[in-house]
């Protein structure tokens, strides 16, 4: 089970700023381990952010994204107290969803 994300969401003048830290190895599939074997690729391939069920961000990621990625974005239309949910899915089919309240 992957570790939880750290999500911060703050509304200011009608714009919600969202900051997300995800815990993930983000292996590129290009590195070799001590015995010379390739470390299999393992990275987040899809990120979705929803606000009250409406998708406000959808991203396709690849192995070029750093380990323990940080994502920040803004969207309009959110209010304080609304729920925002972030979901990531990796290339091994593992997935994790975390929620927070906008403040």
């Amino acid at each position, binding site marked *: 089970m992957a570790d939880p994300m750290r999500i911060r969401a703050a509304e200011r003048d009608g714009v919600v700023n969202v*900051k997300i*830290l995800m815990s993930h*190895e983000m292996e590129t599939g290009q590195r070799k381990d001590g015995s010379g074997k390739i470390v299999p690729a393992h990275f987040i391939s899809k990120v979705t952010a929803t606000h009250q069920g409406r998708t406000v961000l959808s991203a396709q990621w690849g192995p070029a994204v750093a380990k*323990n990625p*940080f994502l920040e974005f803004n969207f309009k239309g959110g209010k304080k107290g609304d729920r925002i949910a972030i979901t990531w899915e990796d290339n091994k089919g593992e997935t994790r969803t975390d929620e927070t309240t906008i403040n």
Partner: protein
Amino acid sequence: MMRRTMAAAVLAAGAVLGAAAQSNPEAEIAKYREALAAGNPAELWEARGEALWKQKRGPKAASLEACDLGKGAGVVNGAYAELPRYFADADRVMDLETRLVHCMVALQGLRFEDATKRPFGAGTNRSDFESLAAWITAESRGVTMNVALSHPKEREAYQLGEKMFYFRGGPHDFACATCHAENSKRIRLQDLPNLTEKAGAQLAYTTWPAYRVSQGELRTFQWRLNDCYRQQRFPDLKFASDASIALTAFLARNANGATFNAPAIKR
């Protein structure tokens, strides 16, 4: 003709910019740190550390919440800024890691060897100490460093640490002081703090633990010491040993008066 002059001017400007960037790598690194600070992955370790602190573990199925870090059982806030210190129950000066091991043994019933099996993590093999240290030190963020040295054993540890800092040895005839007793020393582009001066000692101690971007790991001050020992080609600094505690006590005391500001982010 006009165009050629312009091109030459642009080239010259480029050369000046390039030279400026090269002559001031510290400023460039500072910019890099600033860009990273907004999303410091150390927070992921902090969250894990807090969960570990509260989780019932070991043969005695106890949490660490009854652990006394020096300010009373279970008091975490500000505790790190006063460590290492003397603990009467163990009759010994202890740093954070040693105290955690003590609590794991005393409260959770773990064996010393099991508790200290993995002081530093790598990849998915995470170290409990790095997570716990991340959370406990974060609870001292903004607190003024205050290592008292009021007990004779604390002063003894400080003096031993000072001796170790200046002790030259090993195949390279190195001491900590070889790198850390002069201004503007560096390894590649990385500035080395002068730990014999107040400002350098304070800046260095108050910014560990840190998330190391190049390793993708959170590293503790304990790790920093161990890696310095490796770089000097000294024998390994033994985890939770008196020598390790003494050196930590020396460096922590020299940071007194500074505002603790970690977990930080470093390249």
